[in-house]
């Protein structure tokens, strides 16, 4: 009886939420893993054939999945660093208190609060052959007509929409950098860049890790913008993992294989997150 008591209090705090999570997220997640082992027939009551790991083997031999994964990876690589760099840059510029500070904060944050569907439609429209981008730049580029330029448009949207998010977190983190350390560095004759590298950067390093992990998860899970802007066109060349998975699942009704793709992507994201955690933890201690 007594040995149970220390558990009781935390259990009362954690249990309600965790039960809800278990019932409505974790249980369906396990179902999805089970589905991935079958040639799963969607209809209620139909018999499905057990395939073991065949869906996973198929994934490794699916050339289009690899193309889709490379597009997701390109998206991730070209959106995560700019979101971090630009978000941090703007946060540094916004560090000084001024009457305009709240206004700028809202303007930069505005894209974050708008729905993905809406801004994706907007970017499709802006990058149209007769759209605003071509008009402003005086170009005649068919942005969405081939893989490379279409990915430029999709990545531009990702960066544009994400800057405000990382900016807000960096502003917060920068307020936690001890002013005394910066003053000390100034007295030692360190320039602005040196002060940034030796004082500011180490202080916000854990924040950098948090942002990086969340952005990598989001980057590899890019879906709505791609579906709304190109839906894989032309000829599937701009498919990302989730658009490929969506079509496999809901257009071709191949639920087993779709689930296998989802599980593989989750494993990949989990591994990358673990790697980043280690990287940013080591950076902080060194």
């Amino acid at each position, binding site marked *: 009886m007594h040995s149970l008591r220390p558990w009781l209090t*935390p259990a009362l*705090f954690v249990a309600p*939420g965790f039960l*809800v999570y278990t019932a*409505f997220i974790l249980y369906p997640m396990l179902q999805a893993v089970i589905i991935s082992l079958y040639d799963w027939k969607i209809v209620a009551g139909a018999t499905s054939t057990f395939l073991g790991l065949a869906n996973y083997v198929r994934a490794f031999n699916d050339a289009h999945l690899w193309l889709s994964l490379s597009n997701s990876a390109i998206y991730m690589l070209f959106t995560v660093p700019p979101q971090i760099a630009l978000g941090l840059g703007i946060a540094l510029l*916004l560090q000084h208190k001024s009457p*305009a500070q709240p206004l700028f904060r809202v303007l930069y944050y505005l894209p974050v609060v708008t729905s993905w*569907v809406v801004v994706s439609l907007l970017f499709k429209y802006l990058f149209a052959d007769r759209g*605003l981008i071509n008009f402003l730049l005086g170009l005649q580029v068919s942005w969405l007509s081939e893989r490379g330029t279409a990915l430029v448009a999709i990545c531009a949207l990702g960066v544009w929409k994400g800057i405000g998010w990382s900016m807000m977190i960096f502003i917060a983190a920068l307020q936690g950098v001890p002013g005394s350390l910066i003053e000390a560095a100034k007295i030692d004759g360190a320039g602005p860049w040196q002060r940034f590298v030796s004082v500011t950067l180490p202080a916000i390093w854990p924040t950098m890790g948090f942002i990086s992990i969340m952005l990598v998860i989001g980057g590899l899970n890019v879906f709505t913008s791609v579906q709304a802007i190109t839906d894989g066109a032309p000829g599937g060349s701009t498919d990302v993992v989730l658009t490929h998975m*969506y079509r496999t699942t809901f257009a071709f009704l191949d639920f087993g294989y779709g689930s296998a793709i989802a599980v593989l992507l989750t494993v990949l994201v989990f591994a990358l997150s673990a790697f980043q955690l280690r990287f940013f933890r080591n950076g902080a201690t060194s």
Partner: protein
Amino acid sequence: MSAQARALSSLRIVTLTIGAMVMITPFLYMVSTSFKAQQYVLKVPPQFIPDPATLSNYQRILFKDDFGLYFLNSLIVSVTSTTLSVLLSAMMAYGFARYRFPGREWLFRILLLGLMIPAMMLIVPQFVLAKWLGLIDSLPGLIVFYVAGTLALNTFLMRGFFEALPQELDDAMQIDGANAWRRFITLALPLARPALATATIFTFLATWDEYAWALTSIVSPENKTLPIAVALLQGPRGTQWGLVFAASIIAILPVITVFLIFQRHFVQGLTAGAVKG
């Protein structure tokens, strides 16, 4: 020195202004398009000031379709889900942050897995579950899954914050004889207001915009939420952009309102949560 400082300050303002213009130009274009009739939408060169301007898109949205009802449904669902999710996550985060118990990190990692799995793969198992529980085609059915779906991120966010609160305050109250629940309600929650505000903004945004589950679960027109109504404006045979953008502008107003109300707490909340990440 002061001349140089003033020059730097001007440069900063100019840079920020240019950046802000890039950030909001797409919005202004969207606002402008919402006042255009279809035949002016694709004009070359693009018009920033609609000529002729029309209110017909807004009239159509506000008076012809049942947008008021969908707006109300979305509001009910988002406000309820946000309140419940933030409360449950705050409790979980407090439990994870303030107590040591066997399997704590293990449970936490399982929770984080919920951030990583593509949500659309859960939809079919969730639908079967919802049917079994009688939660299909109802606003409570949306709320339950929205709460469950936002717990992981909110708990992740708030755990760091609670860990950063000084332990001494907690101890002092304990000596006063306050039980754990009272310490949570009267001490931890008020101190965590910034974190709660952060979670509120994120959760409200996520639930306000959710489309896939609402589409799957809702059948009756009277239970529709805004994202479904906006999707219905896009047709397989031509989309009326002016109409879509007018509806979208109406749809983002509450999200911006929530942001403006809570953003003053926002900064502090994220620091603590993020630093622990």
